């Protein structure tokens, strides 16, 4: 109880609450953006897209058995990946359409901001968990050290990948809400983790 009343607990609760609402809004915006994106790119809404490379899948086994830190780390990894992918999509979008469809570009930019904001929420929660935050540079270095960057995709492939990113982001938004709600619960499991 004492912990619940401490400033850190209040901050955690606030971060969770805000993160939940941000994830919810992100989900709603992604859904709206998906419709606009499919229509704009001339894609079929029912088209099946392969899993986006570099993005952890939202669906996970034994989700309820995960610790809070695990949830936060997985979320942070996913949203950092989304941030990079959305930035790439935004760049491609500008290259393709220029200023012809500013609305879609603004929506992508807004979504990118939300993803960034959510990532910031996750980092703050991890700090409250007294856990180190994995550096992005490390990941980048790993990526640089790892396999070379994928070959440049065709335009259609870019569109399909964008569709896959948005769908996965929508999935992750739902999962993130659930994760943060789980974190917001003052459960002893969280403390043990």
């Amino acid at each position, binding site marked *: 109880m004492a912990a619940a009343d401490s400033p850190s607990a209040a901050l955690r609760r606030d971060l969770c609450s*805000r*993160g939940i*609402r941000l994830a919810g*809004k992100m*989900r709603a915006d992604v859904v709206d953006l998906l419709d606009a994106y499919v229509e704009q790119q001339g894609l079929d809404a029912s088209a099946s897209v392969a899993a986006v490379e570099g993005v952890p899948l939202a669906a996970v086994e034994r989700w309820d058995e995960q610790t809070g830190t695990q949830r936060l780390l997985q979320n942070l990894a996913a949203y950092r990946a989304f941030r990079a992918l959305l930035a790439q999509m935004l760049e491609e979008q500008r290259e393709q359409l220029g200023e012809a469809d500013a609305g879609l570009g603004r929506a992508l930019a807004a979504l990118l901001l939300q993803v960034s*904001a959510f990532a*910031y929420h996750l980092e703050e929660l991890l700090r409250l968990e007294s856990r180190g935050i994995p550096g992005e540079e490390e990941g980048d270095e790993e990526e640089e050290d790892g396999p070379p960057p994928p070959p440049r995709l065709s335009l259609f492939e870019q569109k399909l990948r964008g569709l896959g990113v948005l769908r996965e982001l929508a999935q992750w938004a739902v999962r993130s809400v659930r994760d943060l709600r789980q974190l917001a619960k003052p459960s002893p499991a969280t403390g043990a983790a």
Partner: protein
Amino acid sequence: MFSRWNWVACGFYLMLNICSPDASSGLVQSCGHIIPESPVLALGSNFTALCILNESCLDFGNIYASQIIWKIKNKVVPKEQYREINRTVSSVTFNDTSSLATPLTCNILADGQIEQNIYGITVTVGLAPEKPRNLSCIVHQRSRFTYVMTCTWNPGRHTFLDTQFRLRYSWPEEIFPDCVPKDVNNSCTVTDIQFFVNTEIWVEASNALGKAESDHLVVDPIDIVKPLSPQNVSVSSEVVPTVLKLFWENWISDAVMTLKFNIRYRIVGDANWMEVPSEDTASPRTSFIVQGLRPYTEYVFSIRCMKEDGEGYWSDWSEEKTGITPEDQPSKGPPIWRIIDTSHSPASWTVHLIWKALKPFEANGVILQYEVTVRDKSSLSSPVKKYNVTSTNYTLQLQEGTYEVTLIARNSVGASPPSVLLIPASNSKAPVKNLRTLPKHDKLWVGWTAPNSYVLKYVVEWCLVSSSSDCVIEWQIAPGDVQGIDLEGIKPFKCYLITVYPLYADGQGSGQSVKAYLKQDRPSKGPTVQTKKVGKAEAVLTWNHLTVEEQNGFIRNYTILYKTIDGNETVVTVDPSKTEYTLSSLTSDTLYTVRMMASTDNGSRTGPDFTFTTQKFGKGEIEAIVVPVCLAFLLMVLLGVLFCFNKRDLIKKHIWPIVPDPSKSNIAQWSPQVPAKHNFNSKDQMYPEGSFTDVSVVEIEADDKKSFSEQDLKPFDLLKKEKSTSEGHSSGIGGSSCMSSPRQSVSDSDEGETTQNTSSTVQYSTVVLNGYRDQTPLHVFSRSESTQPLLDSEERSEDHSGGADSTPQRQQYFRQNGGQDETSTDRPCFERAKQITHANEGDLVGFVQLQISGQSSQPLGLGMEKNTQEPALSSVLQTCTEGQTVRPETVEENPLSVDEMPKSYLPQTVRQGGYMPQ
């Protein structure tokens, strides 16, 4: 010589320097420069500038720092502010930069006192920016997905410099582009706002003198949202007549934020809004049922929303939507009252039932009809009468008695509770007491003290009192537990008659009335005063009351103001009930001006002036003077009469000398035929009509002229004079004496010779009065042939006094004897005189128309005149003689008369009134 050329060269060099705009970098080098170059200075600070001369110019032009002059905009800076630092540097110091202006120039006074400019700088003075204060931000929802954040702040004082403001915001790990305001310096709008992340917001202000930063505001933009108001609001009615259901749509999705609402509503036409309790609408929703509404009432609704947790701002109110609640049955019966008209007969009433239409919130719908039920309470057997009425009044003919009237209003849903009015046979119950009024702003409060008995309710009647129209009664019902109500719709300056009736369960109290004004003013006109009666020292003034429309308030008094032309004004206050007043102690025969003033509580108004003059004499004064004067006059007359009566003998002697009575003369006594007594005045007896029967003409010798005394001739002279003045015209007397016709006159003139023959003798005649128709004649006149003169005294007196009386008699006499000349004698004498005049026109100078009256025989004088002076006129004169003037012609033409006359030449006995020649 060298020095002069040196100075000329120096001046030329300086000119080149000055005229060259780009001297420092161009071909021509400047002779100096100022440090600092174009500074920006803080207002109020001190400032020092240095002017540094180039060494090259020193050698060439012999110029030194001591020759430097500083100028501000062509105004020389006082030398006290200069300082010569060395041979080539001069400084100037300003303690307050506010005295600075642009440009600040460094000049040098060369030989010949020629001032040359070395260098100039632009000085900018201003203030450093203040710290922006009161930063606040609000996120406006522009559309379903669009939000913009507008931040405002207080930029602080004016800096006089170009100051840039920047709104900066960032996330902990992301810095967003700055928002630079356009055209303003106190607000900026950010378009890419992301919710659910704490955003740090601040403002930076910077200019050449510094930079300032506002306090940092950390806020999640979702907490400062002003959402768009709900859209597509609609209202629908439910089955229940007191509820309406509202529907609307929200612009913002629950994923972004959940909302709470405010719902306000009002009745159409009413400006006051009511609100649904906020706790009832504190949760997200898109509909709400508003309860507690009035049936059949049109309401206006409006909704607004904000973030559910109360963070942020309320949206604007939505557009207004109206809805009408369903009808319900009337909630109460209409207030009912009656006016009873008993003018036809006290036992037969004309009862006007009047009631007020229910107010909308009482009617709860459209009133379709009213049901009036009348029950005669004094007769249980009489049936209950029902009437269906659509108007708000009904007139009944009832016999005097006690009735119970019930009124019900119906609409489409049902009937109202009944309103009951008891109409008693008489208003015998106790009335209210202490009825009074009090104006309250635009309402008139009517108060009373309740009677001791329990009162069901009160009826307050009022009407506008008017002199030109009937009192139109308005009324209002007050509950029995109040002792005063406010009357609305009362006009100021109008008189109202207010009556209060208490209604009891078993009867009605008599009405108590009071007159009242909501607001009083001074009268609109003053009374017109005039006098009813004006006396010597008093005047009765009258006036008419002002009409109630003119009064504008209660007339508290009248004031009479009167004065003479030059006197002081006297003021008299008169009771307002009076219309007459008597001014007393006035000055007689004086012009007064009077006017009258009517006063209310709020002022007075004076009527027109009226002037009157008091009388000179008082009542009875003239009579008191005239009556004694008359009495005195009468007394004097009476005394005079008495005096005359007492002195009548003396007076008589003077006025009427004693005329000897011939009858008492010795001759009378001598004549045996004369009666002892006879009456001279009784002419009828003396000369009864037709008593003269014969006239005898006696010719008298004209030669016997000497037998007439001089006195006897005088009268004829006078007559002659008179006739000469009225020549050709015969007087009335003369006319009456002209008994002869013109023909006779002509014949007279023709026979003038005969006349001349006869006129030589004095003619005496004896008139014998024979009895007419065998009556005994009273008088007998006979012409005497005596030449003895007549008694002087008798003739004179007879000529003057008795002539007039005897004239008519003589005329009669001539008519009788001239019967055949009737036609001619009818003609006026003057005509005949004219004819005569015609004939003897040249001889008229001596014409004399003699009028000889009396019983004397004037032919004596006439004949004498004719004979002695104008014999030619004798005939004319004869025709114009009168009375016993005898014309010879007539005598000649009436031989019968002559024959009948006793031709005696002796004096005849005169029986009565006659005389005998002496």
